[in-house]
């Protein structure tokens, strides 16, 4: 089996987001960037499947500006075999991302495509499902457990009511939840080795897909601030405040 794993470069999850004063977006200059957290789980799962002898090749792909390559390089350092970087200059919408990925899938013919369930920047939660639709492949979203069977996957999904288990035939798209596994760190020798692994560069404009935005971002603003609270000295005071001041119990 061959697994394609899509990874996205986003503002690091520990960074406190700052909104630009002109309302055009959030500050990204000189801000620490890293791989979208559930994309790390997607890579980890692919590597585990390969280590179990059930996959032959892992290809990591990212779509973005020049520096987005760092996320592919990181994926190579934890076990992906080669990389693809599709260059775009602007931020593109999940629909455009899935159209680009479809082109790459048609070229690479993977059996499985893995990615994180959601990117923590735009919080859209769309790309995997859209790609599945465009390819007419089955989708297993929010996966917290994957079992590889003959030409099928048994996937446990995190849903509001608890857990759901489905079986999808291969080829399939899986979007990964944070609880799927514990992503490993790259060792120094593997980081060095990853530098020698190939990354193919492709310009999005050469793929012949429409990636123009359909959604206009009119403004980005800070959410309303909560008024400052108080510290209470004792449990007794807390209960009195909740009863008599906030009137919620």
């Amino acid at each position: 089996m061959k697994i394609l794993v899509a990874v996205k470069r986003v503002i690091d999850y520990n960074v406190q987001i700052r909104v630009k004063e002109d309302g055009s977006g959030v500050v990204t200059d000189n801000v620490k960037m890293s791989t979208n957290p559930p994309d790390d789980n997607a890579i980890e799962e692919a590597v585990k499947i390969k280590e179990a002898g059930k996959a032959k090749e892992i290809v990591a792909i990212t779509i973005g500006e020049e520096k987005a390559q760092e996320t592919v390089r990181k994926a190579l350092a934890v076990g992906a075999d080669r990389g693809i970087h599709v260059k775009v200059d602007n931020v593109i919408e999940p629909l455009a991302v899935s159209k680009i990925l479809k082109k790459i899938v048609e070229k690479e013919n993977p059996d499985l495509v893995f990615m994180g369930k959601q990117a923590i920047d735009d919080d859209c939660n769309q790309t995997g499902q859209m790609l599945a639709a465009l390819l007419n492949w089955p989708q297993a979203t929010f996966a917290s457990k994957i079992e590889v069977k003959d030409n099928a996957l048994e996937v446990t999904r995190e849903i509001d009511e608890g857990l759901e288990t489905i079986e999808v035939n291969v080829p399939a798209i899986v979007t990964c939840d944070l609880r799927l596994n514990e992503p490993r760190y790259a060792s120094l020798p593997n980081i060095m080795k990853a530098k020698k692994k190939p990354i193919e560069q492709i310009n999005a404009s050469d793929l012949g897909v429409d990636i123009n935005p359909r959604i206009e971002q009119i403004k980005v603003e800070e959410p309303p601030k909560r008024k400052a609270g108080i510290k209470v000295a004792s449990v007794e005071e807390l209960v009195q405040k909740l009863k008599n001041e906030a009137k919620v119990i």
Partner: protein
Amino acid sequence: MSVLLIAEHNNKEVRPFTYNAITAASQINEDLHVLVLGHQADEVAKSLSEVPNVKKVIHVDNEIYENYIAENYTSAIIKHAENYSHIVSSANTFGKNLMPRIAALLDTSQVSDIIKVISEDTFLRPIYAGNAFATVKSNDKKKCVTIRPTSFDPADKSGGSAEITKSDPAEASSSTKFLKKEEVKSDRPELGTARIVISGGRGMQNGENFKLISDIADKLNAAIGASRAAVDAGYITNDHQVGQTGKVVVPDLYIAVGISGAIQHLAGMKESKVIVAINKDGEAPIFSVADYGLEADLFEALPQFLSELNKLNTIQK
């Protein structure tokens, strides 16, 4: 043009967030139709026809819709899409799984997780785990929108009498099979809709200690929540998780116990009306969003909290 809302249900009852989504959908356009895809879900169709905001219910009854398989739902929805300007659903795991599949086939760029309807094409939505709000305008002819349920009040459930029309099923997918669902049953209120939520974090130290939380939850008729750290550590099951990747809750009272307040947790609870934080680390970020902060050891504070509650003559339920 009209709005088509995809109902979430278990073939017997409408799932509560559908009512919140109805409120938002009818703000987009009053001509709101609801699509019920199910197996022997006549009661669901009937309940929805009684919602005053609903103008028409389309009911498709077939065994392929007994379990919720996005592939099967999508082909049925696409069949009806041409009559509508907007296709909408709630932005919980139901709608998140389903809507992008529909949007891609309609060649529409979806607007996810809206918290406010500004006009038929313009919406407010949180980005970066709620650390910024974006106002976005969709220029697609047909719009696919998911609605954050906790940002809208549930619609009235009775008084209406919308027409129910039957429609034929679409083809089923042979590549996806439902195997099982493990639902967590509880006598407590649902986390997403409870008036009071009390949540525990890593500070609880183990699963047994959540008894301290459940005793208070029983007293207050509260739902029990948890931080991702507590779920990852195995103290409690994932359906309790509050946060960016768990559930977003907006109760009247949210009590965070032993939760430091990571950005991703705050994203799930900081719109709550009143927030209480109990933590022994006075510098914990959770205090920055708390209306009432108590710097204390939770193992002393929680039993005291319960005994203080027991002293009250009345407790709002």
